[in-house]
């Protein structure tokens, strides 16, 4: 399979970014929107073509999908250790290409309506293109360093887009927070990469992941504090992934990141960038699985499960509709990580891996839809606050229907997309550990509950009187909603397990009726409770919340984690560590340097009188010197 044309997929958005960025002021908004959409449409077409070619035309070898690599050496350290730049085409990268293209295209089209009349319209599209380019690069990376470079690039694009409304203080603070937290996590990622490079002598995914390769065969040759050195590297890389994917305890940036424009939240903070951590673990899955008998995967599983439960509980208590969706995203990503963590490798045992990728795929569709729907609501109501909404079903029929489909999908109601992927995850968890399965079921119920709390709160509930009558959004916004709604409904029927699997061979997944039944029952219970509490205005929910007492307050303050972080950074790190260091730096380090400078100036001002400007003084000095030298040479320099 010739994959050269796939170079265009990332390069077109880059070109669009440069074009829109350089000629920012000269391009009228209408044109810049068209350029952005058109460029991305080409990339999307190429991605779909590549997916078709890869899965249906290129032949499997011995039943397994082959990886296609196109790369060139970019920077050479030693004979074996070098950084390459290139494209890696394998099942998960092709799947991610499809996800990124689809969501990004929908968000581009949607943004033409949503951002209409905004002063920074062209800048917005330029940043969106930059992000899309970086995400393509991340997905197609052939080695750890390339993925790291694009990893940072998506971080920067995310920073730029969260801080898009740069005159708003909260947006600037949120952008800074997102950047610092993820950057802190990426520090672990970088160290992990360096350890891997040191011990295995390669950064290349294909050679790292080869079950017969040296990295996997000789993992036991180096040990450090009871684990293989490679395990430590994998833990550090998971830390990077946890930062990007907003897992506990590095999730604190994600709710604040909702300060960005809503299409950005849909694209970056729901569908694509935040799943980069999942993608990273999946990308290195054989290494995670074989080194130390999968010890690190257990960490992944428990961190994922805990984050998932934690975020779901917080989501119930929030009132900002975008933040509810943000916590929901965090919860679903925890789900994906959990599935990866409990996965086996070969054949049907790899169901967790496949379920994780499947859920990533379906989640991207319905979560983007939820965000875009929320954007449509915000566009109409001019508020993020759930308490100020209600009864919108009468004003916004299309948004209502599509939002309902997405909510049903994420709640796991058959036959929508979320049902299938969630079921696979629960099957994998059930096989692995009762605790994780239990958490999974509880989270499934909570997800259904908070999602319908949101849905009923926006579209049903009390009949709110609005200052301006809300109206349905324009076609440019409802169009993508409809497309994504259709996708959310049908993508579950894709026989995913035959395309994406840890060993690339695939298997035939079966529906496990008992487990699916439990999940659906729990989901319906959650929906039923939400129906009872929120469909019509009543006091039940308030009384129910009071029943939980302090736990409710605790959860509604996000378990005071932000405050804890602020305390640790402001009170402990800034005051106890940074301030003394700053003092030493200013007084001693800078002081000694400035002292040298000051002394030099002082001496100079003392001796500058020597340069008197008097011609005859100079002549005197000159002749005096000549005479002196003559005397020395004649009388003293006797060899």
């Amino acid at each position: 399979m010739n994959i050269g044309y796939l170079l265009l997929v990332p390069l077109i958005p880059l070109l669009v970014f440069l074009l829109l960025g350089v000629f920012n002021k000269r391009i009228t908004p209408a044109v810049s929107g068209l350029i952005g959409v058109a460029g991305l449409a080409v990339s999307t077409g190429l991605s779909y073509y590549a997916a078709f070619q890869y899965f249906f035309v290129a032949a499997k070898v011995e039943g397994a999908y082959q990886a296609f690599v196109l790369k060139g050496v970019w920077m050479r350290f030693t004979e074996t250790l070098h950084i390459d730049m290139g494209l890696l085409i394998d099942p998960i990268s092709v799947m991610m290409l499809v996800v990124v293209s689809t969501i990004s295209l929908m968000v581009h089209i949607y943004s033409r309506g949503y951002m209409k009349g905004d002063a920074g319209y062209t800048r917005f599209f330029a940043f969106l293109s930059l992000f899309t380019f970086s995400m393509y690069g991340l997905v197609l990376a052939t080695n750890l360093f390339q993925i790291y470079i694009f990893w940072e690039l998506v971080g920067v694009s995310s920073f730029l887009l969260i801080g898009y409304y740069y005159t708003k203080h909260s947006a600037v603070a949120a952008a800074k927070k997102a950047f610092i937290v993820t950057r802190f996590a990426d520090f672990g990622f970088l160290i992990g990469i360096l350890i891997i490079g040191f011990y295995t002598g390669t950064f290349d995914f294909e050679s790292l992941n080869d079950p017969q390769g040296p990295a996997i065969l000789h993992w036991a040759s180096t040990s450090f504090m009871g684990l293989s050195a490679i395990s430590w590297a994998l833990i550090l890389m998971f830390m990077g992934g946890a930062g990007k994917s907003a897992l506990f305890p590095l999730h604190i940036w994600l709710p604040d990141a909702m300060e960005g424009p809503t299409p950005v939240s849909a694209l970056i903070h729901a569908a694509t960038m935040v799943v980069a951590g999942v993608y990273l673990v999946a990308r290195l899955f054989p290494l995670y699985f074989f080194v130390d008998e999968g010890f690190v995967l257990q960490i992944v599983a428990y961190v994922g499960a805990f984050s998932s439960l934690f975020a779901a509980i917080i989501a119930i208590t929030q009132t900002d509709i975008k933040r509810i969706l943000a916590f929901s995203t965090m919860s679903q990503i925890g789900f994906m990580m959990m599935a990866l963590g409990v996965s086996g490798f070969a054949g049907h045992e790899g169901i967790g891996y496949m379920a994780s990728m499947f859920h990533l795929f379906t989640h991207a569709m319905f979560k983007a839809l939820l965000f875009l729907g929320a954007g449509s609501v915000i566009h109409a109501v001019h508020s993020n606050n759930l308490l100020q909404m209600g009864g919108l079903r009468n004003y916004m029929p299309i948004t209502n229907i599509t939002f309902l489909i997405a909510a049903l999908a994420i709640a796991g109601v058959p036959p929508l997309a979320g049902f299938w992927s969630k079921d696979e995850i629960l099957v994998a968890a059930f096989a692995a550990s009762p605790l994780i399965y239990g958490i999974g079921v509880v989270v499934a119920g909570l997800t259904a509950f908070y999602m319908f709390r949101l849905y009923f709160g926006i579209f049903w509930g009390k009949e709110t009187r609005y200052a301006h009558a809300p109206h349905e959004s324009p076609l440019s916004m409802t169009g993508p909603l409809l497309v994504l709604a259709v996708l959310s409904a049908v993508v579950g029927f894709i026989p995913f397990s035959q395309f994406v699997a840890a060993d690339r061979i695939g298997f035939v997944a079966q529906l496990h009726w008992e487990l699916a039944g439990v999940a659906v029952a729990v989901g319906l219970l959650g929906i039923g409770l939400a129906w009872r509490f929120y469909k019509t205005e009543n006091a039940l929910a308030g009384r129910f919340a009071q029943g939980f007492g302090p736990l409710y307050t605790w959860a509604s303050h996000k378990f005071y984690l932000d405050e804890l972080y602020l305390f640790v950074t402001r009170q402990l790190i800034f005051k106890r560590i940074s301030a003394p260091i700053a003092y030493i730096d200013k007084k001693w380090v800078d002081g000694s340097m400035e002292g040298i400078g000051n002394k030099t100036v002082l001496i100079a001002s003392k001796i500058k009188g020597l340069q008197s400007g008097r011609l005859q003084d100079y002549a005197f000095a000159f002749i005096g010197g000549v005479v002196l030298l003559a005397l020395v040479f004649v009388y003293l320099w006797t060899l």
Partner: protein
Amino acid sequence: MIPGISITEVLTLSSILFFIGVYGFMTRTNLISVLISVELILNASVINFVMINKYLFPELLQGVVYSIFIIAVAAAETALAVAIIFNLYKQVSSVAVRETETMKY
């Protein structure tokens, strides 16, 4: 060879001339006088060239040729220096050495 005069006497003459020039260069307060002192120094060297040529290599002419060069260069240098002094005079209405002291740090 000049009968009755040894090279020592001639060199003494040129040394005296040279040091008069140096002394004048350093003590005169008038730029024109300073210029004249420079001429004295140059002339002392011209005498040295001619006489040493005469006493050490009487069959050659280099020293004499050089002295003509020096006279030519001295003439050019004087022309230049006088031009500078004229311009300076236009600026500060004076030819005193003291007035040129402003060019410093």
